[in-house]
């Protein structure tokens, strides 16, 4: 029997962790002579106080949903996919190629085509480490990390060579107009009042929500999902039950890579509308924290991604309007990751003791 009720595991622990991180962040801000309350207010109003702020928060969250889901589904098979960054970069390459070289008639088909290309490229990038794990036992953590660097090098090579637009910048040219995705500003424009003005959130957010639903249904409502979870719980038991480890490792990693790759329709097609160097900007690594915090469940990933979106956009507001240095904003973001991810047991164990004591009483 579980020591704690489910709601305590899912809600109470993350909330307490965030509060602890916030207290520590406040002390840090206080130590450099700024007002933590004002900083918090600025973060909240900047990230959640207007449709504009929400537009940025949702944009970042969309990236993190994809990479978080990628880590989460691999984790269901007890595999640690650290290669989300490289898979997202390759996804960007796929998006750029289909957007630049195929004359799409309308954004709807362009979105489908780009999403397919992003998923394909991301999955292909995950396939090699997956194959090495399945057939040769090379540890997936090591190989996926190494593939991040190979991806960066490959993109660097292509963006100063074959794909570079004329000029000094290592980037492709702008995608043609029909391949541009509608932003929230285009979608929620009701006459006089413009919502989400200038914000990069776009239709991809709904694709991300659909991806959450897809992962949930796949993992908990299909035979494949059952096999993935069985394999994750015990490889030898799964083998005994006739589940092929090779198949599960390959399929899970392909889905994981495809999800990470699909992030590119948000940042490359939706926001930048061209491929630049280092397009993923660390979202692949944030995905690890998002999945950890979201307990590898799609709904948890969604909430955690929104939290990190808030931290990113709130952090941008802090950078714009206060003299809190950028490094410290990263410290605040890191504290949240530390408390929700790494220091999970620090909150969990006392809570478990508390619940046990309550039950005895």
């Amino acid at each position: 029997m579980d020591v704690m009720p489910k709601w305590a595991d899912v809600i109470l622990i993350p909330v307490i962790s965030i509060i602890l991180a916030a207290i520590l962040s406040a002390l840090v801000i206080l130590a450099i002579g700024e007002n933590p309350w004002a900083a918090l207010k600025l973060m909240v109003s900047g990230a959640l106080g207007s449709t504009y702020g929400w537009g940025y928060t949702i944009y970042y969250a969309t990236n993190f949903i994809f990479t978080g889901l990628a880590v989460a589904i691999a984790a269901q098979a007890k595999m640690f996919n650290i290669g989300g960054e490289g898979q997202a970069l390759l996804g960007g390459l796929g998006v750029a190629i289909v957007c630049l070289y195929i004359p799409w008639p309308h954004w709807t088909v362009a979105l489908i085509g780009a999403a397919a290309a992003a998923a394909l490229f991301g999955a292909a990038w995950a396939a090699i480490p997956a194959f090495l794990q399945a057939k040769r036992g090379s540890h997936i953590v090591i190989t996926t990390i190494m593939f991040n660097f190979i991806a960066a090098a490959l993109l660097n090579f292509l963006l100063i060579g074959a794909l570079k637009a004329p000029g000094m910048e290592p980037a492709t040219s702008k995608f043609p107009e029909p391949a541009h995705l509608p932003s929230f500003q285009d979608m929620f424009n009701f006459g006089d009042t413009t919502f989400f003005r200038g914000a990069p959130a776009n239709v991809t957010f709904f694709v991300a929500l659909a991806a959450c639903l897809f992962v949930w249904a796949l993992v908990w409502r299909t035979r494949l999902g059952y096999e993935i979870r069985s394999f994750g719980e015990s490889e030898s038991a799964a083998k005994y039950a006739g589940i092929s480890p090779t198949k599960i490792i390959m399929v899970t990693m392909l889905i994981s890579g495809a999800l990470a790759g699909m992030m590119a329709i948000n940042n490359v097609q939706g926001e930048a509308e061209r491929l630049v160097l280092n397009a993923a900007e660390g979202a692949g690594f944030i995905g690890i924290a998002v999945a950890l915090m979201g307990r590898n469940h799609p709904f948890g990933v969604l909430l955690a991604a929104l939290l990190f979106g808030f931290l990113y956009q709130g952090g941008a507001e802090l950078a714009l309007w206060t003299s809190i240095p950028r490094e410290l904003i990263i410290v605040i973001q890191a504290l949240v990751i530390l408390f929700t991810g790494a220091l999970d047991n620090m909150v969990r164990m006392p809570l478990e003791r508390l619940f046990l004591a309550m039950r005895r009483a």
Partner: protein
Amino acid sequence: MTLAQKFLGASAALALTAGAAAADPAILFDLGGKFDKSFNESAYNGAERWAAETGGSYAEVEIQSDAQREQAIRRFAESGANPIVMAGFSWGTPLAEVAADYPDTKFAIIDMVVDAPNVRSVVFNEQEGSYLVGMMAALTSETGTVSFIGGMDIPLIRKFACGYAQGAKAANPDVTVISNMTGTTPAAWNDPVKGSELTLAQISQGSDVVFAAAGGTGVGVLQTAADEGILSIGVDANQNHLHPGKVLTSMMKRVDTAVYDAMSDGADMETGFNVMSVANHGVGFAMDANNEGIVGYDVLAATYAAAAQIEAGELAVHDYSSDETCPALDF
């Protein structure tokens, strides 16, 4: 005073500071951050010099993500900051989209050309300064091999490398020029350990003068060169003082001057296309007490002669970015 009042007061003060930014200039740094010991730091120094001399204040932001570029330009423009100076070619695309929305705000962009009536585009002839330090390197080298360490393989850095190789080959047609790039991720701009490794590798290939155009990575290059007893060449700012007597010279790219000028001109800043070259001392090489003992008289004479020729338009250094080829170096 109750706690709530304190909080209210604090947020009011915050609102006031944000309001006071109106009509002040603003500077937007690139992803490297303002203390990158290189390009951004040079821009920061220019802004600080302006603030120290005029007693004025300026708004600034170090972005963390490409998505924040347009956001930062818009937010500063809407807050009334004028002029808004941005350092780095990556600001070009967002500025080109945003500039027309704020016709009363003046923008200055460094290292990129944006064609809009309210934008000043400042570009540097890095190839000229690199040519001059390349000459000094080849003329000083005893092994006949000189080398270059770039941060990342991007066109801008190739422009440095190409000028350097041209200068070296002009001074000594038989010279061997080795060129290496540090990496392919943004970490390449701040990786002194890798810089040190590359320097050692180049020394083993015979190089005895190394030019680093690699941001913070250059610190490791200069350090290793000094430790191993070869000469190095600094970049962007005057880095001669880092290892006195061991840094041959520094290729000066006066980003600080460009920022200082834009901020000094204020809201009346003239817009258009500005080229910073050897002729207007926007680029050049650094001579000071730290390196005067190690630069030979004939080396200096030849370099000044070449600088005068460039200034007079008699000597044209090939610009890599003009056609993306380099006559002196293969990439």
